[in-house]
Every structure is written in C-alpha cells, then in structure tokens.
C-alpha cells in the first residue's frame, strides 16, 4: 500500500513538474559526463605512466671527442672516468634505486642510429662522432632527480636526460584537460544542486495541500518526504544513466574505433574503465539529490 502510494506520488510529481524534472536530468547528465571524463582522463594518465615509466630509462651521455659543452673541455671521456661513473651508480648510495646499468658504446650508438636512418641522410657520420652513454633503469622511476643530481657533475658526463621528459608535455596537457573537465563538472554540479533544490521546492509547494493533510492525519515524516526525495533521486539517476551511456559511446567510438586504429602504440582506457567509473557517477547523482532534498525538505514539509 505504502510503496504503491509513494511510487504513485513520485510519478505524479514528475509528471506535473516535467519540465523541471527534465532540466534536472539534463544538468546532472552534463555535469556527470564531465566528472566521468575527468576520471577517465586520470585513469588514462595512470595507465600511460604505468606502461611507459616502467620502460623509461635515464640516459647519461658521456663526453664525445669534441663538444661545445664546457664540462667536456678536457676531451672524450676516459675509461677511468667511465669506471668511476659506473661505481657511483652500482655501489654508492644510489645502488638501491638503480635496477640495471647498461653501457652503450660509440659503436653501438652508431649502429642503432644508422639502422633508424633508412633514408641515409646521416651516412656521412662516423662512429667516432657518436656519444657513448650509460642507460640506467631505475627501480622507482620517480627517483629520477636524485640519480640525475648525483651523476650530473661527475667528470666525463656530458648531459643526463630522462626519457620521461618526452612524455611530460603530454601529461601536462592531459592534466590540464582533467582540470578543465573537473572545473566544468564542479560548476555544473552546483547548478544541478540548485536546480534539484528548486524542483523539489516547487514540487513540495504544488503539493502543499496533500502534505498538510498528511501531517494532520499523522503520517510519518519519512512518508511525507519520501516522494519528493525519490523524485529528485529518480531525475538525478536518470541524468547519471545518460552520462554513463555517453561516456560508454564516447569510449567505444572515439577510442576503440578511431584512436586505436590510428595511433596504435598507446594503451588506451576501454569500455571496461567506464564501468569502473559508472557506480561512482550514480553515487554522486544520488548524493547530489540527497543533499539538495535534505536542505529543502526540512523547510517545506515541516512536521
């Protein structure tokens, strides 16, 4: 009886206030799409970091024959200097941070370089002009700065380069995109809350006669307020549903069908990740509606 009554009231309320209900649906839809997009971008960043940082190495380039770098004024790196650098990496305080050290000689560097130069533009280069280097793999890629600082000033070291620098631009872009999405989401969420508040208030006012009688004959506060709360919750959850659908389709068509085909070397977030985000969007929707109802109903359906 009660359930039927509540559901009937919810349905009536939504129907009577259909334009407001629709606006709540749309606003929560847009705001939660941004929330979801921000979350997916962050997941993408984490995935890329996991994927790439593991492969990333620090390159310690050693002084070549002739260099404009004043640190290399004394000429090419000597074997003694190379041994000293290796000792710093493998035996000193850096030892726990360093996973693996690989020495790339001039000849190896030259071979790699030529192999990549299929057009033969650089064929005039000789092995003597190449830089030898240490390739260092770290146990924790975040420790890059420590290793760089420790090796930078050593005699025979030209430059230290972290391959992560190549990605940092991309990550900066993705982080900026997250911030934009999150900011839009925040603004839209505020709009959603205000709208839900207004909708519930209108709904409560338009049914003041009913609630007044309910109060008078002694129906419980929860029964009086429940239909209004559910109205907000139904509208907000519908918005969340639309947002989840949009994110799913976005990932399906933008990433699965398009990006994956054109840029193949990246590991992308997939539709499975949308399902990870989805419950949170629903939780946020219900929370938005819940907070708005509690704020509003205390005032309009006084017991």
């Amino acid at each position, binding site marked *: *009886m*009660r359930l039927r*009554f509540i559901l009937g009231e919810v349905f009536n309320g939504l129907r009577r206030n259909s334009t407001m209900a629709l606006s709540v649906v749309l606003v929560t839809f847009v705001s939660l799409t941004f929330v979801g997009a921000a979350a997916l971008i962050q997941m993408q960043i984490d995935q890329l970091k996991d994927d790439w940082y593991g492969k990333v190495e620090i390159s310690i380039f050693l002084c070549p024959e002739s260099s404009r770098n004043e640190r290399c004024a004394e000429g090419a790196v000597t074997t003694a200097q190379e041994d000293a650098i290796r000792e710093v990496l493998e035996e000193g305080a850096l030892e726990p941070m360093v996973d693996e050290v690989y020495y790339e000689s001039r000849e190896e560097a030259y071979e790699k370089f030529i192999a990549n130069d299929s057009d033969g533009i650089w064929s005039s280069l000789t092995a003597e002009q190449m830089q030898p280097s240490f390739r260092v793999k770290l146990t924790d890629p975040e420790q890059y700065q420590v290793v760089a600082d420790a090796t930078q000033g050593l005699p025979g070291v030209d430059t230290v380069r972290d391959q992560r620098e190549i990605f940092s631009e991309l990550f900066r872009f993705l982080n900026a995109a997250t911030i934009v999405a999150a900011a839009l989401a925040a603004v839209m969420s505020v709009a959603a809350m205000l709208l839900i508040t207004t909708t519930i208030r209108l709904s409560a006012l338009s049914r003041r*006669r*009913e609630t*007044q*009688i*309910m*109060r*008078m*004959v*002694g*129906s*419980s*506060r929860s*029964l*009086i307020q429940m239909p209004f709360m559910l109205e907000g919750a139904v509208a907000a959850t519908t918005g969340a549903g639309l947002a989840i659908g949009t994110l799913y389709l976005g990932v399906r068509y933008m990433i699965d069908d398009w990006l994956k085909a054109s840029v193949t070397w990246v590991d992308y977030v997939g539709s499975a990740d949308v399902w990870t985000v989805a419950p949170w969007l629903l939780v946020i929707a219900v929370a938005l509606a819940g907070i708005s109802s509690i704020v509003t109903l205390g005032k309009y359906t006084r*017991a």
Partner: protein
Amino acid sequence: MIRFDNATKVYKRGARPALDSASVEIERGDFVFLVGSSGSGKSTFLKLILREERPTGGDVYVAGRHLNKLSAWRVPHLRREIGAVFQDFRLLPNKTVYQNVAFALQVIGKSRHHIQTTVPEMLELVGLAGKERRMPHELSGGEQQRVAIARAFVNHPPILLCDEPTGNLDPGTSVGIMRLLDRINRTGTTVLMATHDDEIVDQMRKRVIELRGGQVVRDQDRGVYGLERV
C-alpha cells in the same frame, strides 16, 4: 483527555502572550465550545493540542501524552489520535469523495482491505452514501464539510478538533453539521470546537470555554456564547 496546566505560549520574545497561563481539563467524551474573538488565543489553543506549537510555559497533556516532552518523531502518533476539521474544508480537489477519505488511511499505512470496508461506513455515517465518486467541486459547502469530517473521523480518533467548522456555511447547513458532530460525540469521542457562531453555541447548551487576550475568562457547563453581547 486534554489538560492544560498554566499553559503559556509566547511567539515572539517580549510580545504579549497568545495564551496566558491557561488551565483547562477536558474529559473523555466531552463536547466543548471554545469561544472568543479573533486574536483571543483559540488558534494557539488548538495548535498546542496538535503539537504544531510547543508551550513556552506550563504543561500540555493530550491523550495521555505529555506534549512538552514529546519527541518530534512521536508527533505523527499523537496526530493519529486527533481528527481535525477546518473552516476551509481542505479537501484535495483532484480526488473523489471516496479518495479524499481513503487518503487519510492510506498515508498512515492502513491495508487496502481495511480502507475498502471503513470508508463506505464512514461516508454512510456522515450522510454521503451514494456520492463516493463525486469530486469536491460538485458538492455543496455542507457536503464538503461532511467529507472533511469523514476524513477526520475515519480512523476513529478519540479526539475531534473543529476550527470554525460552520464558518463558511449558512445557518441551515450548520445545524446539519452540528447534528453530525453531536452524533460523533455520542460515540464517546471528545469534541472540541472553536467557533464564532453564537446561535449554535446557545442552542447546543454544551460546555463553553471562553478565551480573551489569551486567558481563560470563563469555563461553564451548559453555557451560552457570550454574557455581554456586542
């Protein structure tokens, strides 16, 4: 059934009290008129009984409950023991007569079966048998008030509060409503009726409590409306 012990209600600090140390005892089965001009404290009196307001001083007991100490979540239970009828009927315009009465039972969680047997009985009692499917706007004022009384009484509360129930009705119709309230009173229900209608009070010869400036100035068995008429 209803007891006020020096009950005082001050709405705004410093303002004149709306009810000033009123002490009244109303027994089970009493029929009491509450009279007094506008602003004399009648509405506050009724609001205190319904626990729409709390007394700022003194104590109020209704149906065995000490209302000063009644917690907010127990209030609905108190209100199930009090039927209330108003001058403006307060019917739901988009529900039929039957649905209006049934609504009062639905929202306190009565079973469908209970509703289906009780509502027709109640409509019969108030003399509206056969008009179950009418809409409120199709009824006369007197009939609408009967619907409101049926709704207030359908759960057989031990107390019936009536706030100017005949205020919007012509004298002939009012007599009918009074007969109905009298009949309800004879089932053992305590009836407390706030009114301006001197003719009715004089005719009925029931107990009269008169308020003036928030104070009980008269509590008289088998009384009349006012000793000094304007």
